[in-house]
């Protein structure tokens, strides 16, 4: 059976966002422990019970991993959980396309100051090619798709929050630091 120390370390391992180090464990338990030994015992327990996880030792410490043999199922999970998530750069690019469409890649890059990858947004069907711009090189014009509207729950592009509304949401925040102090703002 698992000892209390094993359980506490397991709880730490389960909830840690970064690899769990021996130093962290000592701090949390307020006594020094032999993390390598305990982790070996925990892994033995996982193995014996046939649990789908194990503690992997990497340079910075231990981290909880799912076992390799479950990868096919987990991959399928990510495919249908993960298709609604965007990185910061993808989000930036998407926001420019949404607000300035139709727009060329060159114009997007000019606003972001770096070159942008549109491929993943195109693959996710959030943006689409709307035609070509007249003029030299006739570059492709991009705009948002109907899937984009669906994803963000918009009836039409007119329902995008206006910049003025965003400003309102953002600016009032300056006073938000004082939100407990409606009455008590020092006058000067």
């Amino acid at each position: 059976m698992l000892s209390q120390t094993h359980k506490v370390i397991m709880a730490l391992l389960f909830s840690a966002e970064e690899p769990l180090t021996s130093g962290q464990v000592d701090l949390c338990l307020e006594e020094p422990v032999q993390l390598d030994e305990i982790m070996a015992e925990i892994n033995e327990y996982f193995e014996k019970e046939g649990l789908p996880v194990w503690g992997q030792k990497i340079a910075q410490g231990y981290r909880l991993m799912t076992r390799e043999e479950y990868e096919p199922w987990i991959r399928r999970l990510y495919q249908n959980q993960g298709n609604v998530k965007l990185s910061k750069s993808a989000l930036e690019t998407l926001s420019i396309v949404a607000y300035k469409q139709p727009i060329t890649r060159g114009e997007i890059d000019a606003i972001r100051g770096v070159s942008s990858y549109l491929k993943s947004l195109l693959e996710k069907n959030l943006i689409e090619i709307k035609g070509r711009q007249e003029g030299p090189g006739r570059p492709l014009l991009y705009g948002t798709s109907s899937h984009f509207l669906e994803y963000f729950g918009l009836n039409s592009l007119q329902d995008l929050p206006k910049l003025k509304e965003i400003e309102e949401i953002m600016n009032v925040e300056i006073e938000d630091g004082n939100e407990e102090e409606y009455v008590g703002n020092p006058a000067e």
Partner: protein
Amino acid sequence: MSYNVKLDVFEGPLDLLLFFIKRDEINIYDIPISYITQEYLEYLDIMKSMNLHLAGEFILMASLLMRIKVQMLLPREKVDSEELIEDPRTELIQMLVEYQKYREASAMFKDMEETQNKFYPVKTATDTISWDPGLFLADVHLVDLGIAFRNLLESMPKTKYYQIETYKININQQAQILRTMFSTKKRIKFSSVAGILKNRIEVVVTFLAILEMVKSEEISVSQKTIFGDIYLTKIQLKETNVIADA
């Protein structure tokens, strides 16, 4: 009257009123308006004497309280006994009851927050699985889209805009274009002028040029119907003066 109350604990005038109601065990449906107004104003005086800035909402509530107080002091006109006389406090009571409901609910949310905060979600490392990391980082909502765009605009060098505005277009130049157009015609439709302009800035500057030319009595403008096309007409007599000015 002594106040052992922290000054910054009130969320607003309704919160402050509810504090008095609770402290003095007042029936919310039968508020002694004169008493509570006095308490409220005294509190505001203390705030002022401490040189604290009062949010506008607090002043607004003070005036509402005083209005109700006056209404209650006024002798009521005799009305049909069947007819109910509206209590001047009704609106205030409704506001307080409604607000109190959500204030109670928020206390409950606080408890729920505390309970749930004791659980930590289990996090497993997932780097054995390959997926598109560029598309798998953050939850995105509509407001994020707007904020991202707004921040991008904010971070763009502002001078870019100014360069374009001051670039190669000015009032004199547009006036010159108009004069060229007048060299073949005596009267020009504004819509035909606007038709050759490329963007909004050009329209604005050209419009300013027209106003300048009207002011210097170089041309006159007229319109046949409201919202109809504007006609620009060259004024022959003043031509020499204008050339001299230019």
